Structures are given as structure tokens and as C-alpha cells.
């Protein structure tokens, strides 16, 4: 007894002394001090600078390709927080979580601060003189390389950076500017172009009374999530629009839907044709399609479609009924419908519904032609990477320059990108932070963060009129040895063609000249300086242009008998890689705010997991946290199981973006990389990687580990019925539809 009292005393003593010391040590200045810290003061500040009061500057978010206008709050010369810029139609004064995390790109402790050069096995810091000399020797005036010997690999790039890059490649007489995005929407864009006449129609979500979305996650990972979320809010105001989502694995948009249906991956087109078949039997739509298509559609009767897609036949009838009751509607295709061998046909079939329902011109419009097409983002594709890979493998490529993409991480294992990259004798990366691809390069040049550099951006998706977004530094550079991408390119161009670029001492001068030259297009009569100052202050140059019309081309749709891939006994599960709104293809895994933000559907943080339907898990006796091996024909990963009801029972899903090995302290050794187990299956029409067509087998390894997540136990609200739920097939859908089909 007495010893326990001593223990308690000991505990209190320890708590009183070391506990307080530990707390104080972790909290910075915790006492009243005199003469310890210095006061920041100014010599000759601008009149508007008031210490302690933030000033807002307009710029453009560079976290994704949406091109949202942002405002940065700057205090005492440091950027503290980003907000949306109300001047920008794209952002409408709002910003997403991914955009908020932009300051962590800037302040990241793993930022590159000096040029790095390969020395033996590793990269060593070098001076700019040495790095510049190496660059000039290879790419300067006397460089003998040209054509296929050089390739510039970038992510989606737009604005004057793209113009300079094109001029740079022109100077080598090369067309090898490879634009690679692992999550490229190229299949959907090709199908849209073939059926609607435009690659990316402008969506009028707020004008629709009913949205039918086949895996389109427009609220999370679409082409412009901030803009579409604002439109979606208006869509939900009275009269409240209805959202129906059909997809193999629930996305953030699916979680917001009124009706969510699981479908077998790759059968979205069959379901769309089944709907089309139901619709054309209605008098109003009977003549919407050419006779040859209408006759083939008859093969897609609801029983056949139901059998192939796994969606109940009555559901199909109900949705068809809702579609003709609620006009105008909007039918959307998303990545999970596009990423299959028949992905192009899936999207074409889904767009056919828009044609039948006459949504064109109402909820779907054409994007006006951009007055500066050279500034528009070059379209990305995965097929372009395959071409580059072949060029490297054959030894033709002598110099590879990389900026804004990380194919060593995102290319599937069957591509052997890292191995083929070794065959290139001179590889240069332009980066703010080392990643897997930069680590394989011979020279790495440190770039300014997007919050330190000037630039322009043009979004691929322009919701209203057209905009050129202006990016300006929100604070002085943190590291003196970092440089703007535009400045490095301009220096190289000057070496190759001194006379053409001598008027521009730096990229800023080039940018200012180029932007002010566009003055007549924006109908401005201001002086050059005033026009430029206005552009910087507003952060955006907006030009009001009417949307264009769409032209229907039904011949793009090749209809045959309904077919579906055969079941595979060796690999029984469909594999759906899910795109997280924050990590995307993994380029943001180095931002701890995003790692710490719980996944919206599972609430899991700092990890990878495999989602499996509870009924499938019960059959296989899998519990949450069981470590499973997920094996495809090309690779295997080991990952924790998470039981998730929002998934088709024959499907398993893993989030993309984790599994880095060389991307800084916050990304390394967190989770696994599902890109590496994707099978070599390609869309038949475009040759793009079919990301959702991989099949896997899952096995228990016998190990179990805790899944770190915010939610409590998943056993349906611990029996308290806090929110009543009903299975979709039990819901009285007939009440929503006055006339039931067939």
C-alpha cells in the first residue's frame, strides 16, 4: 500500500517537473520576455504597409489545372493564407482545400534550395555557375542535338511558360514536347469531340433539373471543382435539382447524390444504351436518333442490360422515367466510365443520352474559341508517355527535360520508365522539391514556388467567356538560389538566338511586354503600364464571349451487340483506383495538411487502404485492418482492408497518390502506390491507358493493423439510428416518377 502511495507521489513529482518542462519546450515563447527577441522594423516601407495588418494580393492557384483566381494575405512580407479572388469567374471568390494547401508547397521544409548535380550515385549541391555551364554545354548555342534527340516532358502547362517552351523546342526543330498527366481525361475528351464536336463542353449544372452522372466526380476531382461546387449549390436551391450517380465506387459527388447505384466497372455504356432504348420508346424522343441506331438500341433491353451491369431492371426504368420528367437534364461521364478498353464507346454512349434528351445548348454548351490559342494548355495524354518511353528505350533520346510531372512514380510498372530513363545520357529536372523522377536526373534546377514567381495561366475549362489568369509573387523568394522556370528558359533561348530575345532582360520583362501587347483584344485604352498594373491588381484578364453551339455526330458511336468482358477466375475482382480530391496523382502527398485531412468517405488519414464491400468481406472472413495482398497480372501490393458499403461487391478500390519513396519527409513511406499494379490495357480507340480495367486477386496475409481514421466503429451508428437509411431498391422511387416506363 505504502509503495503505491510513493508511486503516486513520484508520478505527481514527475508530472510537475518534467511535464511542465516538456510542455514549455514545445510551445515557443511562453513567458513574458524583455530583450530576448528582435522587433521587425522597416527602413522605407510602402505607405500601405502596416505591421500586424494583412494586405491582399491577387494571383492564381497552381495546385491543379483549374486556374482559380486567388488572393493571398501577406503580413510583414510573408504569405499567410490564400483565399478565392472574387474577380475570377472560375473561382468566384472561393477556394478549395487543395488550393489552401498551396502555402505548404511554398514553406515546405523539403524545398530545393540550390541546384543539384549527379556525382556518383547521388545528387550533390552545386553553384548556379556550374549548373548553368552544364546546361549551356548541352543546350546552348553550339548544341548539336535536334529533333528526336531531345524531349521535354511536362505536366499540363499553359500561358507564357508554354509559349517559351514551344519556342525552345522549335529552336531544336523538335516536336517532342510530351504533356503527360497520369489522370489525363484524354479518352473522354476524344469521345466528346467525336460526338459533340468539342473536347470539353461547358456544363451548366445549375440549369439542369436532373443530373445523371456516370462516375463524374465534378465536386471533387472534375475539371473545375470550385466553380462546379458553386454551380451545384445553385442547382440544389429551389426548385431543387436531383442528382443520380452510377459508378462502381462511391466518389465525393456520389456521396452527395439523391440516388447512388453501384455498377460493374466498364458496363456504363451498356447501361446508357439501355436508358437510350427506354427513352426512344417514348413518343417525344422516338425520332431523336437515326433509324439505324434506333434499331440496334433494341438489343439493349432492360433485362439484358440489368444482367450485364448488375443494376436492377426496374432502376433503369425509373431513371428513364425521371429523365423525361425532368428537362433539361445533364448526363455526365467520368473517369471510371472512361478508363476501359471500351472507354471511348462508353463515353460516346453516355453523350448519346444528351443528344436524345436535347440537352445541347441548354445544359451543355461549346467553349468559345480562345483569342490566344498558344496560351491554352497543351492536351495531356498517357499515350504520349508511351511514345517517349519507346524513344528512350531505343536510345534515340539524348536529352530529357522534365517539369511538373513524376512518371517514375505514376507510370505503371509494365512501362519500365525508370529503367528506360537510365539510357538517356543527360536528364534535367526543374522542380521545387526532389521527387522520384528528379532523383533519377543528372541535373536538378530549383524553381521558385508558385507564390514567388510571375506567370500566366489559361485554364482548360473556361466556364464563362475566356480568362487569362495572372500569377504574381506574393512574397520575396525564400531561397536566393531558386529561379523562375521562365527565366531559365529565356536564358537558354537567348544563348540559342541572342538577337531575338535581347529586348527582354528577364522573364518579368518578357511577360509584361507579352501581356500588354494583348491590350487591344481586351478592348483597353489604358497605357501599357496602367493595363499591366490593372492586370496584376485584378489577377485576371477577362473577355466576355458567347458560348458556341455543339454539333451532334452520332456516327461516332459504333453499336454492336451488348458485350462485356469475361469473368476471370484467376483475378476475380475489378480494381478501381480512386482519385482523392487532395492528393490527385500523388503530387500533393508532400503537403502534411492534405495527408492529415481525413478522406471524405472513409475518414482515413496518412495511409493507403483497400476498400471492399462488407458482404464480400464477410464471405472471405476479412475484418477491417486485415493486411491483404492485392495482386494483378503485373504487380502486387500489401495494404490494410477497409470495409466500405459504397462499392460494387465484385470490385475493390484503392486511393491513388500514396506510396512515395523519394518525395520528402511527409510523403515517404506512407501507404502504397496502386499505379504500379495497373495492367497494360488500353482504350481501343485512343490508345490511352485504361486505368479502371485492371483485375486483381486479393488474399489475406494473416496480419492485421489498426486503420487510423476519424470515424468511430462502422457498425451502423452503433445501433442508435441517428440517421435513418434505406437501401435504394427499397425506396419508393415510383413516387418521384408519375409515369413509369414500359
Amino acid at each position, binding site marked *: 500500500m505504502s509503495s503505491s502511495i510513493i508511486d503516486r507521489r513520484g508520478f505527481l513529482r514527475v508530472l510537475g517537473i518534467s511535464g511542465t518542462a516538456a510542455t514549455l519546450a514545445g510551445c515557443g515563447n511562453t513567458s513574458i*520576455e524583455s530583450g530576448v527577441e528582435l522587433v521587425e522594423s522597416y527602413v522605407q516601407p510602402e505607405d500601405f504597409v502596416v505591421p500586424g*495588418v494583412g494586405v491582399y494580393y491577387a494571383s492564381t492557384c497552381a495546385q491543379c489545372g483549374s486556374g482559380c483566381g486567388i488572393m493571398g494575405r501577406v503580413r510583414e512580407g510573408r504569405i499567410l493564407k490564400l483565399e478565392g479572388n472574387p474577380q475570377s469567374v472560375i473561382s468566384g471568390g472561393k477556394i478549395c482545400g487543395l488550393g489552401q494547401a498551396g502555402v505548404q508547397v511554398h514553406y515546405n521544409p523539403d524545398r530545393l534550395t540550390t541546384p543539384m548535380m549527379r556525382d556518383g550515385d547521388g545528387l550533390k549541391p552545386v553553384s548556379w555557375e556550374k549548373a548553368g555551364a552544364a546546361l549551356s554545354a548541352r543546350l546552348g548555342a553550339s548544341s548539336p542535338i535536334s529533333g528526336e534527340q531531345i524531349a521535354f516532358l511536362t505536366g499540363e502547362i499553359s500561358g507564357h511558360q508554354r509559349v517559351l517552351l514551344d519556342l525552345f523546342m522549335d529552336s531544336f526543330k523538335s516536336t517532342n514536347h510530351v504533356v503527360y498527366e497520369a489522370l489525363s481525361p484524354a479518352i473522354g475528351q476524344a469521345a466528346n469531340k467525336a460526338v459533340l464536336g468539342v473536347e470539353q463542353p461547358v456544363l451548366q449544372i445549375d440549369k439542369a433539373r436532373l443530373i445523371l452522372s456516370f462516375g463524374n466526380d465534378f465536386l471533387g476531382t472534375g475539371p473545375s471543382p470550385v466553380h462546379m461546387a458553386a454551380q451545384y449549390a445553385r442547382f440544389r436551391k429551389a426548385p431543387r435539382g436531383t442528382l443520380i450517380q452510377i459508378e462502381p465506387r462511391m466518389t465525393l459527388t456520389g456521396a452527395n447524390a439523391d440516388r447512388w447505384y453501384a455498377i460493374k466497372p466498364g458496363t456504363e455504356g451498356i447501361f446508357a444504351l439501355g436508358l437510350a432504348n427506354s427513352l426512344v420508346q417514348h413518343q417525344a424522343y422516338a425520332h431523336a436518333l437515326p433509324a439505324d441506331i434506333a434499331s440496334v438500341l433494341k438489343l439493349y433491353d432492360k433485362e439484358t442490360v440489368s444482367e450485364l451491369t448488375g443494376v436492377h431492371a426496374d432502376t433503369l426504368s425509373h431513371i428513364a422515367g425521371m429523365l423525361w420528367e425532368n428537362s433539361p437534364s445533364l448526363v455526365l461521364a467520368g473517369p471510371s466510365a472512361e478508363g476501359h478498353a471500351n472507354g471511348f464507346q462508353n463515353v460516346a454512349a453516355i453523350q448519346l443520352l444528351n443528344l436524345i434528351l436535347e440537352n445541347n445548348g441548354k445544359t451543355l454548351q461549346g467553349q468559345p474559341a480562345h483569342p490566344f490559342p498558344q496560351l491554352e494548355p497543351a492536351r495531356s495524354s498517357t499515350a504520349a508517355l508511351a511514345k517517349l518511353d519507346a524513344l528512350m528505350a531505343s536510345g534515340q533520346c539524348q536529352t530529357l527535360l522534365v517539369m511538373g510531372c513524376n512518371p517514375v512514380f505514376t507510370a505503371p510498372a509494365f512501362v519500365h520508365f525508370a529503367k528506360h530513363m537510365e539510357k538517356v545520357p543527360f536528364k534535367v529536372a526543374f522542380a521545387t522539391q526532389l521527387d522520384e523522377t528528379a532523383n533519377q536526373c543528372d541535373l536538378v534546377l530549383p524553381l521558385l514556388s508558385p507564390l514567388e514567381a510571375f506567370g500566366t495561366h489559361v485554364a482548360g475549362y473556361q466556364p464563362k467567356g475566356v480568362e487569362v489568369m495572372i500569377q504574381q509573387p506574393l512574397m520575396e523568394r525564400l531561397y536566393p538560389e531558386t529561379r523562375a522556370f521562365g527565366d531559365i528558359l529565356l536564358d537558354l533561348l537567348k544563348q540559342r538566338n541572342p538577337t531575338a530575345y535581347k529586348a527582354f532582360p528577364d522573364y518579368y520583362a518578357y511577360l509584361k511586354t507579352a501581356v500588354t501587347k494583348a491590350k487591344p483584344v481586351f478592348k483597353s485604352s489604358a497605357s501599357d503600364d496602367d493595363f499591366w498594373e490593372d492586370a496584376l491588381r485584378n489577377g485576371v484578364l477577362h473577355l466576355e464571349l458567347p458560348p458556341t453551339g455543339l454539333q451532334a455526330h452520332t456516327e461516332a458511336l459504333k453499336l454492336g451487340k451488348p458485350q462485356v468482358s469475361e469473368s476471370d477466375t484467376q483475378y476475380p475482382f475489378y480494381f478501381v483506383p480512386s482519385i482523392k480530391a487532395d492528393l490527385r496523382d500523388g503530387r500533393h502527398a508532400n503537403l502534411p495538411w492534405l495527408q492529415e485531412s481525413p478522406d471524405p468517405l472513409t475518414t482515413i488519414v496518412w495511409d493507403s487502404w483497400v476498400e471492399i464491400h462488407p458482404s464480400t468481406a464477410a464471405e472471405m472472413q476479412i475484418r477491417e485492418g486485415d493486411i491483404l495482398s492485392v495482386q494483378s497480372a503485373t504487380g502486387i501490393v500489401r495494404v490494410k482492408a477497409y470495409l466500405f458499403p459504397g462499392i460494387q461487391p465484385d470490385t475493390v478500390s484503392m486511393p491513388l497518390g500514396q506510396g512515395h519513396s523519394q518525395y520528402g519527409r511527409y510523403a515517404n513511406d506512407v501507404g502504397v502506390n496502386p499505379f504500379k499494379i495497373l495492367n497494360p490495357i488500353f482504350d481501343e480507340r485512343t490508345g490511352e491507358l485504361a486505368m479502371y480495367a485492371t483485375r486483381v486477386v486479393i488474399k489475406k496475409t494473416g496480419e492485421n493493423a489498426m486503420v487510423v481514421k476519424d470515424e468511430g466503429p462502422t457498425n451502423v451508428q452503433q445501433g442508435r439510428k441517428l440517421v435513418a437509411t434505406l437501401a435504394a431498391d427499397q425506396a419508393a422511387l415510383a413516387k418521384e416518377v408519375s409515369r413509369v416506363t414500359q
Partner: protein
Amino acid sequence: MTVRMKIMLVWLSLLMICGSAIAEPFVQGGAIGSQTDDGFNALGPVVEQPIEFPHNTHAGQMGINCMYCHTYARRSAVSGIPRLDKCMGCHKLIESVKDKPRIKKLFEYWEKKQAIPWKKVHDLPDFVRFNHERHIQRFYFREDRPVREVCGYCHGDVASMTTARRVKALSMGWCVSCHQKDHLENVSTTKTSNGPNDCWQCHK
């Protein structure tokens, strides 16, 4: 509960009382505006500054308003150190003191365009947000009290010092003692109110 545990609890309670007394050795009292002993006087250390700035000359002999130099106090959470060009604005024209060592130093900083590395004298813990603007607006502008008195509530009579030295405890008990008093809402009324007593007003 055993007798030994009870004894331990009594000792613990005593320890806590003594502990708080050690942390806060002053008793409350004294009128607002007083720069005399209000029970919270606690002279801070002498802080050696890069230039021994004579507040007594500027604010004392010449009677310059504190906010002529500390111009941010009425606009921002921090009062701020005056910008260097403000010092130079006057001293470029004052020939009589140009040869004094302090002024020579000032010119050296100005020629190098280098900010003077002043040290903080009144540095609150990082978890406290004190707002100068709110206090200056209330007591100087709305209550129309003399500036030396308003600034002096917290900073003491700086006009009698050379470089500033802390004279008050700057403790939470001291803040709260003033927030609990009745203060006139403005000069033309007899209506009074207290300072806020929500935790988050200062601890954000």
C-alpha cells in the same frame, strides 16, 4: 480514502495555493491610469539597445505624441517600431545634434539602408494576442485621455526613460484586474462598461 492520502491531498492543495502565490506575488488594487503602484509593478531587466534612444528627450522635453512615431498603435495589433525614414525625416534637418554619437549611428544605419535591430522590451507569450488598436481607440480617442496616461497604463512613464524598460507585470491577473473595472464608453457619457472576459479574446 486512507489517512495518508488525505494528508497528501491537503499538502497538494497547499502546494497549489503557494504555487500560484509565487507566480503572482502582487495583490490587486490601484486606479486605472495610475503609473504608481497598483500592486502589479514588476521592473523588468535593463535592455541594451543598438542606440540608446532618449524617450525622455522626444516624449518628455519636446512633448511629442507617442503616436507620432509609434504610428501603427492606433491602426494595428502591434504599435510597431517607427520606420527609419521617419527618424531621418526630422534628423536630416536638425543640425545641432548631428555630431552626437547616437545620431551618427542613426545615419550609419540609414546610409546602409539597414533596419535598426531593436530588441523587444514588452514581449508577451506567443499564446497571448494583445491588440493596441482596441485600447488606443477606446482610451485615447473615445475617452479623450492624455496619451502619456493611456500608453502609460502598460508601459509606465516612458517619457521619463531613455530606452524603454518594463515596469508592469504584464500578467493575466493584471490584464483581468483592469478588464473588471468600469470604464467610460466615451468622453460625453457616464455610461460605463468592462473589458471582455472571454478566454478567446486574447487566447486565439
